[in-house]
């Protein structure tokens, strides 16, 4: 009896050994596996390395900002015109969280209350130098913006769908976007792409008072972007991206006029605009200094013959292991749109015209300082933020030589306070 049991056990063991041999035989040799793994590390033949995941904590941000433009210098403004410019109170709210193992979403709401005068048209001044005629100060206008975005996280990438609405007294826009990213090379390389569209309807105010003002106009913008980012070291990353945008429909400014041979005429721009921007961003962390540097450069060009350069630099300094101080600087320079002039002595052959300072040649520098202090209350992580930014523009700040400065160029101060909560 015992011998039978023993032989049964022996049979079982022998069967198990055969099974093991077959299993080992099916598995490739260590050398083959090493080479296969090397191949798997190449992009395309993705390794099983999983991608990022939905936020593990919910995060809520609120910022209040006060934007105040400098008054126009008296020598730049037409006699009797309003000199005080725009002031805006801005409230921003953001909430983001993960809602399942693979899904996250965020919502952004902005509300602005604006008042003040804006540039209306430019006339030749006493000695030919252009002077700005301002609109009358508006009582108060409001803008509300809402954006909702959802992310789905795959093993090696992410897809994002977003939709938003923007509404003002005279303006309503709907926008949407779809984007995705894919990670390669042990998550050292990321490729991303996306498309977006926006449909805007403008119904300008005071059309009774200003009969040449359009009553209702539509505008459409479509954009596509491609981006590639690469980890260059354990504390260094770079990204380069290209974005193309097509604008069609009413692209002029209904509230601005252009002086043509002594008469203020409506702002007339082409109903098509092709724009392209190329942005490169660099991030590096200095371990010993406990600081990170951000360096961005953007090149922009469009078929209105305008091009621009933007340089941004920010230094994120951690102090006493908790406090964050961020000084920053920005330099911007743009050329003019083809159909721009401060004022026109004769109409253009193509019928286009604009004196908008935003299409004029100029340069600008900005500097900012931001401070962030984290603290813990009710066992939740909070952070307080305060920031100040100063922006100054001028024709003499442009990279190229500018003959005539648009008198409506803007400079402003921006104060921000905010609170962030993580839970």
């Amino acid at each position, binding site marked *: 009896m015992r011998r039978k049991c023993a032989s049964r056990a022996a049979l079982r063991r022998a069967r198990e050994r055969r099974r093991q041999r077959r*299993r080992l035989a099916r*598995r490739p040799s260590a050398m083959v*596996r*090493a*080479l*296969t*793994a*090397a*191949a798997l*590390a*190449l992009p395309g033949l993705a*390794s*099983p*390395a*999983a991608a990022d*995941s939905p*936020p*593990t*904590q919910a995060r809520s941000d609120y910022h209040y900002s006060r934007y105040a433009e400098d008054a126009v210098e008296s020598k730049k403004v037409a006699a009797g015109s309003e000199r005080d410019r725009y002031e805006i109170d801005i409230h921003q709210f953001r909430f983001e969280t993960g809602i399942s*193992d*693979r899904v996250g979403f965020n919502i952004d709401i902005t509300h602005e209350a604006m008042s003040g005068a804006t540039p209306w048209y430019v006339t030749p001044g006493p000695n030919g130098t252009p002077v700005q005629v301002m609109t009358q100060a508006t009582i108060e206008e409001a803008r509300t913006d809402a954006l909702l975005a959802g992310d789905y996280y795959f093993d090696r990438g992410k897809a994002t769908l977003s939709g938003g609405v923007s509404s003002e007294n005279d303006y309503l826009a709907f926008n949407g976007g779809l984007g995705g990213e894919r990670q390669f090379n*042990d*998550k050292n390389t990321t490729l991303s792409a996306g498309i977006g569209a926006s449909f805007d309807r403008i119904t300008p105010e005071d059309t009774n008072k200003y009969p040449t003002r359009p009553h209702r106009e539509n505008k459409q913008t479509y954009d596509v972007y491609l981006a590639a980012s690469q980890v260059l070291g354990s504390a260094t990353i770079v990204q380069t991206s290209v974005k193309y945008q097509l604008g069609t429909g009413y692209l002029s400014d209904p509230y601005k006029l252009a002086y043509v041979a002594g008469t203020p005429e409506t702002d007339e721009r082409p109903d098509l605009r092709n724009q392209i921007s190329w942005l490169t961003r660099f991030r590096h962390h200095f371990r010993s200094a406990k600081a990170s540097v951000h360096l961005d450069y953007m090149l922009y060009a469009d078929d209105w013959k305008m091009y621009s350069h933007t340089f941004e630099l920010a230094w994120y300094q951690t102090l006493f292991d908790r406090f964050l101080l961020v000084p920053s600087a920005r330099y911007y320079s743009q050329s003019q749109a083809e159909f721009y002039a401060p004022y026109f002595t004769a109409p253009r052959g193509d019928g286009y015209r604009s004196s908008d300072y935003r299409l004029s040649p100029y340069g600008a520098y900005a500097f900012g300082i931001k401070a962030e202090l984290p603290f813990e209350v009710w066992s939740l992580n909070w952070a307080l933020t305060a920031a100040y930014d100063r922006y100054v523009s001028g024709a003499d700040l442009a990279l190229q030589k500018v003959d005539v400065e648009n008198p409506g160029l803007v400079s402003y101060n921006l104060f921000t306070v905010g609170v962030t909560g993580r839970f």
Partner: protein
Amino acid sequence: MFPARFRAISAAALLSAALAAPAPALEKGDRAPDFSAPGLAGGTVSLATYRGKVVFLDFWASWCGPCAKALPALDQLRKEFKPGDFQVIAVNLDRDPKLAVKFLSKRPVGYPSASDPNGTVPQRFGVDSMPTSFLIDRSGVVRHVQRGFRDGDVAPLREKIQKLVADKR
């Protein structure tokens, strides 16, 4: 189809990429390499001491969100089994172990964590994502590789551990 020179260049490029690649990730059926590393709380943590028990080996770091989420879940899972049957051990990969100690002081767990700031242990295990965990049976063979951590991963893990604990060989 491709000229010989092109093939040679491709081979060279592939080889250089291969040389830069980490050790192949341990798979189901591989023997888990023994390791010994200093514990975050002092002493030494060594995989060999757990031979004969089912072990869940978790590689984590304080800066990794999903890793932090996994810690309490793993501690909970550990308490569901007898200590003689199932153990959880972790290898912390923070460059500065003090950050890991600070992290654990706020969210303590009842299982030991080794400290490996140079990353020699994850290299040997071929860790290719954060977090990565290995479910090792009583004889030291890897039976499941857990990449990443999501809430939905706990139930299947529990089932696998129950099966391995029942296998007393």
